[in-house]
């Protein structure tokens, strides 16, 4: 593991968590019911907390007065290394749930591996985050089952969300150059992820999409959909308009 890979990989993990967390935070105050509004806000806070841990680690490795804030607020879209899945719009509740489910299951099996990583920091953050992610998987699985095995409308919406999001799942298992030497077994990751998705879909009476080799990709290398620009515009506005402001 060379230092540049560690920096890029850590920022990739951070960006995934930050953008996903920020997307979920858009639901705050708009949830369909108070209790689920709080549930999703809790998940947001968990993810933004994970992002902070990764940014802090990356900042110390980079040095040069880099801080977690400069990494989150002062980089442009082309420098972000999050996968395309997390920047996709929230859509309706079904789309938000399915996106969370795909991502949480991915994080769960990834952190399962990272908890034994030979980089002490990556290892420690994975161990700490795993408990949170375990709950995210549980929460989002329950909802996928409820929606899929619910009413005709909820099922229709879930299937529409699946149609929108499935093409973004392939990128999760296509390692970027900085992921290659991180001792992550991507074949195993994909196998475990697919197995879990399949078992929850079965319970939700949803068919797995046909195996298709084509998928969207590019996010990990900084090639993003137009959605990321809007996310960053909102998220970074205060820090860009009032540099170094603090509270």
């Amino acid at each position, binding site marked *: 593991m060379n230092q540049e890979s560690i920096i890029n990989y850590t920022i990739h993990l951070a960006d995934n968590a930050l953008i996903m967390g920020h997307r979920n935070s858009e639901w705050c105050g708009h949830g*369909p*019911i*108070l*209790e*689920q509004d*709080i*549930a999703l806000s*809790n998940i947001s806070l968990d993810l933004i907390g994970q992002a902070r841990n990764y940014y802090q680690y990356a900042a110390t490795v980079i040095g040069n007065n880099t801080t977690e804030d400069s990494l989150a607020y002062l980089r442009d879209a082309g420098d972000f290394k999050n996968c395309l899945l997390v920047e996709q719009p929230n859509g309706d*509740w079904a789309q938000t749930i399915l996106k969370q489910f795909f991502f949480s299951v991915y994080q769960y099996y990834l952190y399962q591996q990272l908890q034994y990583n030979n980089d002490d920091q990556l290892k420690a953050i994975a161990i700490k985050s795993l408990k949170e992610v375990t*709950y995210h998987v*549980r*929460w989002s699985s*329950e909802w996928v089952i*409820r*929606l899929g095995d*619910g*009413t005709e409308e*909820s099922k229709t919406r879930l299937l529409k969300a699946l149609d929108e999001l499935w093409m973004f799942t392939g990128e999760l298992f296509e390692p970027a150059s900085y992921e290659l030497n991180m001792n992550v077994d991507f074949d195993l990751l994909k196998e475990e992820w697919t197995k879990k998705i399949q078992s929850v879909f079965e319970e939700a009476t949803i068919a797995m999409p046909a195996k298709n080799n084509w998928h969207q990709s590019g996010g990990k290398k900084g090639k993003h959909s137009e959605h990321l620009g809007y996310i960053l515009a909102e998220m970074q506005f205060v820090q860009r308009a009032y540099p170094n402001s603090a509270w």
Partner: protein
Amino acid sequence: MIAIRKFYYGDYGESKNGTADISSSNKTKNEWPLWEVFIRSKQGLDHKHAGSLHAADAAMAIENARDVYTRRMEGLSIWVVESKYIHASNPDDADALYDPANDKAYRHPTFYNLPDAVKHM
């Protein structure tokens, strides 16, 4: 059946079917029922009433209770029960139920001399 309806703080009413009832005009047949939440804290041996919430079923009620009532490390164990299964005393009966105990101070065990041999009382 899942019906999603927006609820606000303070909606938790006292209607008989255990659901919020603020306006009859947008009432649907599929409102999520109300649940009472009991949390056992680290120090406590008993579950204490923490509040109430809406959920479609018991599993969701426990998850919601986790998200709403244990955010600040309050709990180790959660009980939920549908509000409609709780039977309460009638406040109008308070005089008859509680006032008679007022002048019966002898019911407090303060008039006995404990033998020295009895410890931990």
